[in-house]
């Protein structure tokens, strides 16, 4: 999947790890963002699967280090310059145990209008082509989005990603738009669940409308060509 330039900051901010809910689940594992989960499944850099055979003579092994009690407190660790161990491979997304980072680049605040207007326009474009009930339903949810945004109920990452979604939707990148909607549902379901399904439907409707129009265009071009090459023959259009 390719992303247009300028989205790097938003992307990096969406590769995060949060701690699990240790109040409700003992030793709850950390929570990975949608972006990180999608990345998983590639080849591991060093799968931990090796084992060591036990000594065949069966003798108990006495530990060689300082496990007896009452030893004097250790000095500091070996300082960096004498480190024989190279730093571990740093992947593209070092995990942090903190809240999701805001974009390091200071951007102007995402405006509600910049997001809502294109969505409403997209709905208008589709109005004649879908059932009234569906249209009303989507419209209702866009109103809900507006209400929550204006009411300060949506977090910055959600706003940023919605701006991105609208951007790719306008340039007809359906898969990318779908993926962003999914990432919002996975990472921020509490904030977005009520209205996001409307945006999802809008993407689907726009996509099918677009391909329908493209198919019709193609058909009319072909028919036009046929008209030219075989004059005098009846065509049903």
């Amino acid at each position, binding site marked *: 999947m390719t992303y247009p330039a300028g989205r790097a900051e938003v992307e990096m901010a969406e590769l995060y790890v949060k701690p699990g809910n240790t109040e409700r689940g003992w030793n709850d594992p950390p929570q990975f963002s949608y972006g990180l989960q999608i990345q998983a499944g590639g080849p591991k850099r*060093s799968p931990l699967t090796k084992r060591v055979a036990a000594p065949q003579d069966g003798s108990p092994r006495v530990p060689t280090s300082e*496990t007896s009690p009452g030893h004097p407190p*250790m000095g500091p660790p070996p300082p*960096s310059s004498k480190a024989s161990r190279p730093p571990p491979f740093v992947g593209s997304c070092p995990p942090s145990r903190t809240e999701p980072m805001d974009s390091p680049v200071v951007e102007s605040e995402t405006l509600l209008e910049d997001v809502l207007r294109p969505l409403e326009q997209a709905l208008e474009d589709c109005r004649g082509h879908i059932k009234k009930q569906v249209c009303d339903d989507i419209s209702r949810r866009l109103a809900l989005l507006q209400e929550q945004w204006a009411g300060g109920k949506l977090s910055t990452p959600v706003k940023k990603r919605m701006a991105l979604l609208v951007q790719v939707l306008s340039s007809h990148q359906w898969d990318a738009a779908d993926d962003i909607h999914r990432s919002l549902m996975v990472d921020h379901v509490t904030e977005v669940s009520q209205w996001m*399904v409307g945006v999802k439907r809008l993407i689907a409707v726009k996509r099918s409308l677009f391909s329908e129009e493209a198919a019709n265009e193609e058909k009319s071009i072909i028919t036009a060509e046929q008209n030219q090459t075989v004059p005098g023959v009846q065509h049903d259009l």
Partner: protein
Amino acid sequence: MATYLEFIQQNEERDGVRFSWNVWPSSRLEATRMVVPLACLLTPLKERPDLPPVQYEPVLCSRPTCKAVLNPLCQVDYRAKLWACNFCFQRNQFPPAYAGISEVNQPAELMPQFSTIEYVIQRGAPSPLIFLYVVDTCLEEDDLQALKESLQMSLSLLPPDALVGLITFGRMVQVHELSCEGISKSYVFRGTKDLTAKQIQDMLGLTKPAMPMQPVRPAQPQERPSVSSRFLQPIHKIDMNLTDLLGELQRDPWPVPQGKRPLRSTGVALSIAVGLLEGTFPNTGARIMLFTGGPPTQGPGMVVGDELKVPIRSWHDIEKDNARFMKKATKHYEMLANRTAANGHCIDIYACALDQTGLLEMKCCPNLTGGYMVMGDSFNTSLFKQTFQRIFSKDFNGNFRMAFGATLEVKTSRELKVAGAIGPCVSLNVKGPCVSENELGVGGTSQWKICGLDPTTTLGIYFEVVNQHNAPIPQGGRGAIQVVTHYQHSSTQRRIRVTTVARNWADVQSQLKHIEAAFDQEAAAVLMARLGVFRTESEEGPDVLRWLDRQLIRLCQKFGQYNKEDPMSFRLSDSFSLYPQFMFHLRRSPFLQVFNNSPDESSYYRHHFARQDLTQSLIMIQPILYSYSFHGPPEPVLLDSSSILADRILLMDTFFQIVIYLGETIAQWRKAGYQDMPEYENFKHLLQAPLDDAQEILQARFPMPRYIHTEHGGSQARFLLSKVNPSQTHNNLYAWGQVSNCQEFEEGPGYFFKMLLLN
């Protein structure tokens, strides 16, 4: 191939197969003396990004009792356009489409690198995937809210033309009619009374007017929209309404008095779900996904009463025959599981509660159908949320990893028969020349059904060598096995995956060394472990342990070199060196030891053990332990208390838990804050290294493991200490004047071996 290890690894990568023995003993008698049976771990849908499926149907042997698929082991006469089946030696004519083949123009299925090949079947209309959510509403408020959100989220992860349905339950069971317009309706059932499939279908208005009995065939949803679509609708039509419906779900309204449990009718809810799918979509891929937050307390399948002061059964209760509801409940769920498997559907159970939920009684539902069992503390945890998300994970082609409705058939060359299979499957009761009379696992058949599976699902398949003792080694010197798996791919295409493998026969008397060198101790350990866990279903725990010990002793006697008078002289060759350790850890594992686990926990661990691939199964048997220090790169260390050192960080992976343990000195340094000082940046890296490795595991594993970060003296350190061997004896510990840092005063492997050899 320099070593057998490389050979084994290459074969696993290509065919998804690991045999216990890679050179096969050529006589029945000798094979039984090898102790470990000839068997293989097979991953039928192993992910093969480099294997594009072919778009035609497989060519079959024309002998009706054979029907093996054309494969690279077959002899081919390119001029006469004939091929000889390598299993039954029948000469077959190639079909007309193969007229153009030649030595230089071979079809893919004859090339050796396509020992595993996948065919796409073009016949028949594709049927959509079906997801039926069965949701417990007797949850605490924030748990229910978290579950609702996860379900709403899942609607965004499902493909647009998948069908989805909703049943909610508590004291009553509600089947929701999904509609795109107007008011939503639901059908309410009492949770106390079980109903037959026909009654359910009648009451839901699914019965069509007098239709003659039809032969079983894939359901065509387009043919009967008026019947099925009321309860199971495509996502692209119903997502908005269903999102609202889910959002409006309330807790079960019936008040729960003090000292009581909520009345939960899980048995009837599941029964209705099975009946609904049975009547509308038999024989097409479907998942019944049960979400529950507590035990069934009412109706058929109840596992405990509603009085809180009567606790749910423990292993102790079961041993003392004091579990009132267990037999009846288990029978109820077994009946449902068998029906579901016969219909080609699978049942998942997502159980999130602090106390037990009845997984022991319900385990047959996921185990027989290939569904998932997920156990957590609350739906409002990362463990549940992310595990649930991973069900919908996609492969490199953007398709779901899950697959449905698989039938797996095994064919063998004449000198071998199939004794049985162990894994998430049911028998299809297909008799034939390949079927052995001696059963190991689910036997008496050469075909099994796996209704739900994914690229890691692995079966253990056990064989019997039937060649008589003095019969010569078969011509060509090789035996062969073919596995044919028909299944529904998540893209709804029907596919067939065919794997054909061969190994050399060898005479044990003269070639024992070759046979030894080709022993796969990892595969053997997992295959024996599966047999042991299978036995726990019908035998007492101590008997299973005795059986396991006896097998180990016999194996060591056969393959070890030792001086009878001197136990310390015992040696095993390299290809056996890890095996005794595996057995030692297996007998202490939660799969064979129920001490310290609830019946639900034991069922949960065994469920995952019986279906994972070799690498993950081994991790479960003998957890991985890696040590991080300033002295070099991370290295694997012995799972032993001697590996716990003050200046080391340990990472332990038990499959179900990831434990990071800081040694005493490391912990002191961290407390002193050295990682924040720039001149000690290497210490910061050292602390980070195991976290990065842990993250890689956590990001990919299903189900998601628990994560424990602890240090010397920490209470959570017990997770590490209870797994490692105590390498000191009692006497040594007392001499040091300290309490052992290990929880169990159990003897280590050294003592264990001595005892074995003295027998």
